[in-house]
């Protein structure tokens, strides 16, 4: 989990620990993980009890039977998001099919909107996405290449300066000045928008007592109803937690069906 996210979620961890003291939680801290395998390890060894993540990592954890998805969250009024795939206006690329032989800048292997959704979109477009070691690496003929930009902030300058032919952003960050400044953005055009998926999941690790899980669920659900809880949520950049609608998980599972590549 990125450091920024780690710091943002500290109030939540402290609040939950405080509220759930009677069920054995004596302190709350945020554990950062480099990637999905690392976090899986934390979940399996009990270091992490609750994980806040985007859908793709959650589904990966679930596949490893490390977590039970508990709740969803909304941020900035949005509970779902999608992935925008964009190019420079002058690039001449207008559809996903035009990306054959081109390179698209993804964010990170664990990113739902920055990897999973645009990759699925490229496949659905009949393209064969191939991961490239670097943006300068040649794209194999007939295929479309993708390269991880590591950070979302790298994506728009890569695309703007032609390091990558296209880039992807979560819809929630498209107009984020910090990662997609208007100076670049006005030169971009979105050529594809992916399906929308829930934005934030809160999951508990497998092995937690059902009673405790229920306590956690109840506590998180009512946070937005209390001043203290609301303050914590606001500090975390979360509007509220909500139950996962029926069928959501199945839909996500379906999205992952046939997805053979594993997160790095």
């Amino acid at each position, binding site marked *: 989990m990125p450091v920024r996210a780690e710091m943002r979620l500290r109030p939540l961890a402290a609040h939950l620990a405080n509220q759930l003291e009677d069920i054995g939680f004596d302190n709350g801290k945020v554990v950062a993980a480099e990637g999905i395998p690392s976090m899986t390890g934390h979940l399996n060894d009990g270091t992490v009890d609750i994980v806040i993540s985007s859908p793709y990592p959650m589904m990966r954890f679930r596949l490893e039977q490390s977590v039970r998805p508990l709740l969803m969250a909304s941020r900035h009024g949005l509970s779902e998001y999608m992935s925008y795939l964009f190019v420079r206006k002058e690039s001449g690329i207008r559809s996903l099919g035009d990306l054959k032989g081109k390179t698209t800048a993804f964010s990170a292997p664990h990113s739902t909107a920055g990897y999973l959704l645009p990759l699925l979109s490229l496949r659905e477009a009949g393209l064969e996405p191939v991961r490239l070691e*670097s*943006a300068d690496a040649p794209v194999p003929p007939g295929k479309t290449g993708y390269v991880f930009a590591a950070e979302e*902030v*790298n994506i*728009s300058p890569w695309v703007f*300066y032609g390091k990558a032919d296209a880039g992807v952003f979560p819809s929630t960050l498209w107009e984020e*000045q910090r990662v997609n*400044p*208007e*100076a670049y953005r006005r030169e971009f055009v979105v050529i594809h928008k992916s399906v929308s998926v829930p934005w934030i999941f809160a999951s508990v690790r497998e092995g937690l007592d059902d009673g405790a899980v229920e306590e956690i669920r109840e506590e998180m659900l009512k946070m937005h109803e209390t001043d203290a809880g609301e303050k914590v949520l606001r500090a975390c950049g979360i509007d509220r937690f909500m139950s996962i609608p029926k069928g959501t998980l199945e839909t996500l599972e379906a999205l992952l069906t046939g997805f053979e590549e594993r997160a790095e």
Partner: protein
Amino acid sequence: MFPFRHIWANLVFLSSILVLLIVGAFFLIVVDLEERSLSQVKEFSSENISRTMRENWESEALDLANLLARQCAPHLSRFNVSAMQEILTEAVSCRDVLYINLHNADGRILIDTTEGSILIGEKPTRSFARRAVEVRRALVQEGLDFIETAVPIFLGSEKLGTLRVAYSKASIAGETERVVAEINERIDRSIDNSIANTLLLGATALILSIVVGAVFARRLAHPLNRLAEGTKKIAAGDLTYRTDIRSRDEIGQLAESFNKMTADLERATVSKNYVDNIIRTMIGGLIISSPKGAITFVNQAALDMLGYDEEKLMNLPVTAILAEDTSTSSETLLDKLKKTGRIRNLEGYLRTRDNRKVPVLLSGSVMEGRDRESEGIVFVALDISERKEIEEKIQGYVKRLEYSGHLRRLYTDILSHDLLNPANIITHMTAFLIKKNPDADREEMAMILRNSEKLTQIIRDASDYARVESGESLEREKIDLFALLASVIDRLRPQFEERKMEVRFDRTGEAPIEANSMIEDIFSNILTNTLKYAPEESGITVTIVDEGQNWLTTVADEGEGIADAYKESVFERFERRDKLGVKGTGLGLAIAHRLVALHGGRIWVEDAEGGGCLFKVRLPQA
């Protein structure tokens, strides 16, 4: 003069004052120097620091920009914006950087740190920014409120972009101000430290001086205190006290002098006590008066003599006790004393309290002080009342003695002249008659002659004895005993031969004596005595022995000797051994005894070997 009672405290006080003065002077000098230096330094520092700070900032900014450019170059080549953001974010936070702009090769601002390191993407609008991205070298530009350093970012020879680092002039000024303030503060602190150190040094020196001063002062004062204690003990009467202070300095010398003085005082006190005892026990009265004659001291003997109490006598004029009819008038006595300085053994009188006159032998002297001024007069009065009585008695005796001597001389004269002459005449006339009248009654005539001769001898002997008894006419001359005895023996030889007695006498020798010619009578009487009492045909041995200071003459006969009961009485008048036919007056040995006594000798009789008498006469040698 000094504020404290104790010498050690005064010494500590003085040493502390001295240290304070020295430290204070040093302090003032240091402070003055530092303050003068300070103002110059402060004046100099502000301007130069500003310039230096500016130059320093520019240099640092350039260094930072170059560093950041080198760090960002590889990331810029790969367009790793997040990595560059991290680098620039850290750079901004480490220094008072106003902003950092990283430009792409086309001049667009890739990252701006003004509101956090964010992507910008815009092309610079300000002229200095445009100017900066155009150059291929470092460029320092100054705006209204900032100073900017721009460096190109190269990767090899390819310019990838430009890095601009800007510092706020206010920051620089603030930093300069801060540095100047810090420097000034350091200067001030340095001065304060200097002052504090000086004060600390001063305080330390003061404390040390107090401690050291106290230690040494106490060590110095301790022997003095002991000497002071010693004087108190001496004042209390303990004259045996001696101090055991031993040191080579003046205090040791003082202690030595103290002990000597104490020893002298002890001796003097003993002497004084001795003298006091003498004065108290002396028989004579001691009276001391002031130079003007007022009594200032009398001893017990004087008080007893005069019958006064001491208090009554004090301050009385001495003339009150000197009786008027002294050997000289009392007034004249004092004048005489003052004139001559002393009187000695003048007979006078002291007047007692009950107005009696006590005869005294008066001596006096004027006591003179160092400057020869009279300090008083000392009188010693010896009560001679008894002596006066005795003198009067003696005078009576003397008068009686003179009278008896007169009678004796009269008696001697009568004997030697008035009786002896007629006795001689009778003897001579009787002898004449016998010779003239051979046919007269010889028996009767012979009896008359014998008795007149006897009478004549008695008168002579009596006269001699009287003269000897009176002690008069003992003129002395040098006489040789050997010659004297030889003469006596020769004179009596016919009588010795008549009785067939042998006289053995070694005449060789000399035995000089100072004696009256009457001394011949001693030996004449002894030999005559021997003639009378020793048997016929016996021997008489005469010797003279030198005893060193005396001559011992011995006459030993072979007679019957004298019983012990009579050995002394034979030398008394008219004491004779009973023997038939022995003629004599009984005065001979008495005369001999008296003569020997008058010459300072001795005569006695012992038993001779063989049973006779051994007469011994000891006379002083001349």
